[in-house]
């Protein structure tokens, strides 16, 4: 099969076709089941100003999400588009029109449709191509508002496999809600090069082909295809190679793919399960959680719990208006869904690339080397106390009729740089606990992210119940390289870092302290193999990666990997794919 469309965004994409209109019924999505506003079902929204407030909150949250990677061009374009939508939402003339219609007795929903129709008509009749295309933004915004009115909140759509999305058209915020880690290409029936969706796809580097309407019926859901955004070519002819990385030593895509097909039956039940390697080692799989919407994903993929709840994203998302009650509800929700023993809440990790406007952080020349993590939090004891107190309140709320002592969720301390910080945090907790006599002292974990602490494990192990290796920051500080630098992708492969990890893991075993790895390395195939070989048996990663990783790990034999990893530790330089393959092949024989 071979078709030619119009080139939209260059690049090669390989993946399984999903037709956008079938996204709702397909098994590929891991839809965030949580409606962000838990009691909102749309029926209480009576006025345009209420709707504007909710819509503004949603857009602001989406914009904040885009700010995770600061300075990235793609996120900046996405933010600009969303900002324009925010502006339109607050437009006085639109408001006048809609309010007037409502006052005549028309329903809010119809009034919104009317108001938007008036402006869409005006703008689509303009000459200027670029401005004319802004109708797409009006469509996008209108859809968002109508969804709010009918109680449907947008959710983050995690994808399970590498996907080529095929759609008639796609609105910008629909694109923004898809998991970009797994979206490998876009094929649109129509679409123009100046549409915001294509501009975003370009900014995100997603290969895109337009004008596919003549052959879209031939693109069957589930078929694996390769698209070339440079010349517009779509084909299913591929040299038998692994579509995930292009070259694979350990498992082939087809195998994993077929396994997926049989596993899709259980999509509705929450079956938390780890995985056993091919030689029967039990591996724990937990999920990293940034936003509550992903909680549904966590269940879908059967993660055994939440290994890392990054609470700072709650604060960053809701900003100044984040009330203690809302925060309490957020924790309560998680505790309800997963139970306290399966949730690890990381205390606010702000500063560096996550500044929070409400916290006065002094301007620094080197934020990554300055006030951040627990160091920062301890300088703002009221904020630390508030967070801990709110967590306990949530615990009481959820488990309030327990007759015995209640176990709270585990708490993880971010960016520990000195033993005294652990003591201070524990003291703070002890003081607060006097107001919560029914709650047991929580399990405390320390994030090992700086070399100094990696070397202080024997001391730390006495005061904490578990440790979690934050590989992103450990590599940043261990290699003196900015975590936002693209070269970070492979910096972790430097043998020195691997030896550092090896040492941490070995010490943790010796000190009998539970250890887990959360951090991007755990989401990479080579990373998992290395970590397994080094002795890690518990991982926390983004929900979207879990299904593939589960399959992948089930095919690995640890006893074969251990000698491989020992060899690599001796390398003077980063291992290259070829070397990895060579060593592995030698071992196979």
């Amino acid at each position, binding site marked *: 099969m071979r078709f030619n469309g119009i080139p939209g965004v260059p690049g090669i994409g390989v993946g399984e076709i999903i037709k956008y209109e079938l996204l709702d019924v397909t098994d590929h999505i891991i839809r965030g089941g949580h409606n962000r506003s838990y009691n909102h079902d749309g029926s209480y929204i009576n006025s345009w100003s209420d709707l504007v407030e909710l819509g503004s909150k949603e857009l602001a949250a989406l914009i904040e999400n885009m700010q995770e990677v600061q300075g990235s061009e793609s996120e900046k374009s996405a933010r600009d588009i969303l900002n324009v939508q925010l502006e339109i939402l607050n*437009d006085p003339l639109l408001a006048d029109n809609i309010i007037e219609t409502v006052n005549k007795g028309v329903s809010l929903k119809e009034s919104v449709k009317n108001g938007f129709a008036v402006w869409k008509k005006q703008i689509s009749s303009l000459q*200027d191509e670029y401005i004319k295309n802004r109708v797409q933004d009006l469509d996008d915004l209108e859809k968002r508002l109508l969804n709010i009115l009918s109680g449907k909140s947008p959710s983050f759509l995690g994808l399970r496999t590498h996907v080529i999305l095929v759609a008639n058209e796609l609105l910008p915020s629909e694109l923004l809600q898809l998991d970009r880690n797994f979206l490998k290409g876009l094929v649109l029936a129509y679409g123009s090069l100046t549409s915001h969706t294509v501009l975003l796809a370009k900014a995100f580097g997603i290969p895109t082909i337009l004008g596919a309407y003549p052959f879209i019926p031939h693109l069957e859901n589930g078929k694996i295809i390769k698209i070339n955004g440079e010349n517009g070519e779509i084909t299913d002819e591929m040299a038998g190679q692994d579509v995930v990385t292009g070259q694979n030593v350990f498992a082939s895509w087809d195998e994993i793919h077929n396994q997926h097909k049989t596993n899709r039956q259980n999509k509705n039940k929450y079956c938390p399960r780890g995985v056993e390697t091919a030689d029967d080692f039990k591996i724990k799989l937990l999920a990293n959680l940034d936003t509550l919407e992903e909680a549904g994903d966590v269940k879908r993929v059967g993660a055994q719990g939440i290994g890392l709840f990054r609470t700072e994203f709650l604060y960053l998302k809701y900003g100044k208006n984040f009330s203690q009650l809302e925060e309490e509800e957020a924790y309560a929700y998680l505790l309800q869904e997963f139970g306290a023993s399966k949730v690890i809440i990381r205390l606010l990790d702000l500063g560096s690339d996550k500044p929070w406007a409400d916290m006065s952080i002094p301007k620094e020349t080197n934020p990554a080397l300055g006030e951040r993590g627990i160091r920062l939090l301890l300088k703002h004891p009221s904020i630390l106390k508030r967070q801990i107190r709110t967590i306990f309140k949530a615990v009481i709320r959820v488990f309030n009729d327990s007759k015995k002592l209640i176990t709270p969720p585990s708490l993880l301390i971010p960016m520990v740089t000195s033993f005294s910080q652990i003591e201070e945090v524990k003291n703070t907790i002890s003081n607060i606990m006097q107001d919560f006599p029914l709650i047991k002292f929580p399990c405390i974990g320390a994030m090992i992210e700086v070399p100094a602490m990696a070397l202080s494990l024997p001391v730390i192990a006495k005061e904490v119940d578990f440790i979690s290796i934050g590989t992103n920051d450990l590599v940043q500080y261990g290699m003196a390289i900015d975590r936002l630098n693209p070269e970070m992708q492979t910096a972790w492969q430097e043998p020195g870092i691997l030896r550092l990890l090896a040492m941490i893991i070995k010490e943790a075993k010796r000190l009998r302290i539970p250890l887990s790895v959360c951090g991007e390395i755990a989401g990479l195939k080579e990373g998992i193999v290395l970590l397994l070989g080094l002795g890690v048996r518990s991982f926390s990663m983004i929900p979207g990666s879990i299904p593939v990783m589960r399959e992948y790990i089930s095919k690995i034999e640890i006893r074969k990997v251990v000698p491989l990893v020992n060899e690599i530790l001796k390398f003077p330089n980063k291992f290259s794919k070829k070397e990895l393959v060579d060593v592995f092949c030698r071992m196979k024989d």
Partner: protein
Amino acid sequence: MPICCTVKLGDNVGLHGRPGALLVDLARRNSETRIVLKNGGKEAIAASLLALLALGVGKGGEVVVEISGGKEEAIFDRVLAILLGEVR
């Protein structure tokens, strides 16, 4: 003193997106002053992004700017800067 003047937009500036948003912001912060842009028989208050978009003024196009009600000079300077692309 009311100001009424025709302005040619910068070559890379169209009446949409960022320039539009800047004008809306300006109008919002100076709500006593009446800022109106006109083009091709249509007129738009600067406080409404939709109205500005509907004028359909593309890059390098022309608009008539009318300002009245107070602080006209200062506001006009700002409007000019936005339309010429001098504000990011």
